[in-house]
């Protein structure tokens, strides 16, 4: 218990250092924050602006789409803040320069140090925007207010954080071997985020099934959303599949950390 408290203190202290360093160049920080906010805002605005002309997207209303879109964006950006240290470009910079070795030399758990090595506060405005989109969805989608809805939506967000965090950890671990294949992970991370931002029945059957059974992305938010909106699940899946769906996230994350341990054992440094 004391150990956990010690590690938590250490993590918070490392974060404090990160936050102070990011506050050093205030103008740059504010511009970065607003710039990344504007990218998300533009993407969403493009969809929201054309929806009235079409009256919906494959039978989904703006409110229902906002629910999926907002939750996916909220989870992804929170994950990006938490797991930023594992993001392949950040980690591969440490691996290539050899500064990853300094993590190994410090008397603190390695994973904790990587977690605290990149904590991008500039993404906070995006969190607020995503929450606003999801909030609009909550108000305008026909959801039954109640503890079950709240619990399932919270689980969906946590599940997505774990899932995409797991993909970041896998992508980061791959940089111990190669820098090239990391591009392929972008299809899964950024592509996966975009994919589950929309109702998955708009995709062709093979694409939807690939991201349901091979890569369990559909279980995280799409199936729970279908359940909460009172829509039938695809492929005749039973109702409880939607309730336990978000668990796919922690499972992926656990697998990712097992792979991470293999990668760290493989790491030999750059020899400098």
């Amino acid at each position, binding site marked *: 218990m004391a150990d956990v408290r010690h590690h938590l203190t250490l993590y918070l202290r490392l974060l404090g250092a990160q936050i102070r360093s990011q506050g050093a160049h205030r103008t740059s920080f504010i511009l*970065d924050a607003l710039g990344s906010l504007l990218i998300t805002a533009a993407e969403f605005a493009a969809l929201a602006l054309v929806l009235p002309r079409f009256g919906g997207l494959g039978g989904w209303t703006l409110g229902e789409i906002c629910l999926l879109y907002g939750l996916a964006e909220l989870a992804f950006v929170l994950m990006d803040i938490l797991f930023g240290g594992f993001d392949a470009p950040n980690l591969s910079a440490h691996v290539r320069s050899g500064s990853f070795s300094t993590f190994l030399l410090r008397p603190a758990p390695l994973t904790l140090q990587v977690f605290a090595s990149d904590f991008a506060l500039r993404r906070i405005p995006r969190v607020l925007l995503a929450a606003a989109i999801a909030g609009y969805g909550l108000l305008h989608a026909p959801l039954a207010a109640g503890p079950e809805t709240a619990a399932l939506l919270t689980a969906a967000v946590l599940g997505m954080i774990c899932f995409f965090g797991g993909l970041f950890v896998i992508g980061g671990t791959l940089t111990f071997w190669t820098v090239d294949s990391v591009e*392929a992970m972008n299809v899964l991370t950024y592509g996966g985020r975009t994919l589950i931002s929309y109702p998955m029945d708009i995709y062709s059957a093979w694409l939807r099934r690939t991201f349901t059974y091979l890569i369990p992305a559909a279980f995280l938010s799409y199936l729970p959303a279908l359940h909460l909106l009172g829509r039938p699940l695809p492929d005749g899946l039973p109702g409880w599949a939607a309730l336990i769906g978000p668990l796919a996230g922690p499972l992926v994350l656990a697998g990712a950390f097992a792979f991470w341990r293999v990668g760290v054992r493989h790491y030999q440094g750059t020899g400098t």
Partner: protein
Amino acid sequence: MTTMPAPPTGGHVSRLSRLALPWAVARLGFRRQFAYPQAALWGLITNSFFGLLRVAVLLALFGTRPQVAGYTPQDAITYTGLTQAFIMAFSLFGWFDFMRVIHRGEVTADLLRPASLLGFWAAQDAGRALGQLVLRGLPMLLIFQVIWGLNWPPGPLAWAQVVLSVLLAWACGFLFRFLVNCAAFWSPDAVGFGRFAWALLGLGCGFLMPLAFFPEGFRAVLAWTPFPAMLNTTVELWVGVTGGGAAWAALGTQLGWTVALLLACQVTLRAGLRRLEVAGG
């Protein structure tokens, strides 16, 4: 740094030899794009995947409607293929090269060259854009043709207009990117400013959605910006949403924005170079 470098002062500088330098620069810019074929392949795969998602969203929007705002579903697929194909050639996700050169002070080396700074960068970017069009654009169109089938311009006149429009869209886009990059003369935080600009570009040029789908008021605002000239005009000419006399008017608008942005670039560059101070060493 107050003066622009003098042009080469050989006795007989023929028109041909004045073009020799930009030509060589463009060729090198072209060839440089082929240095990392593997990265290009992965980029192509990522672009294709996002293309797949964008087609699904657009087709779901159409539902059973045969036509919306002049676009048929097949036009919407063609739109997606074209916009995905031009991402790299038109640097739609951002371009910070000139900014970096200013911040590092390497711009002084560019100023020593016997060519105008803007012309040098334009030649380099033209080569880069063509290289990316060959490497990433044409394969993207081929993939779309194989999977969904594309609509192609109907005849020689339409093709000529499309080619002209692509050239003007590149010129307009390059000058806009160069102008944004000039912010680095004034601010060390120009990268953040650039991100702003690219986000506006994505929405305004019709990369995120065809501009024809947007509400009337928003389109009217965009019509006063150069953004549609940087991509949307080309797409509308290609799929035939703009045709006949409107096509020439659209090309004229593109040309007008190109000239306006060229003047803006020259004025800004002159002011920027007057401010420029580079530490020696």
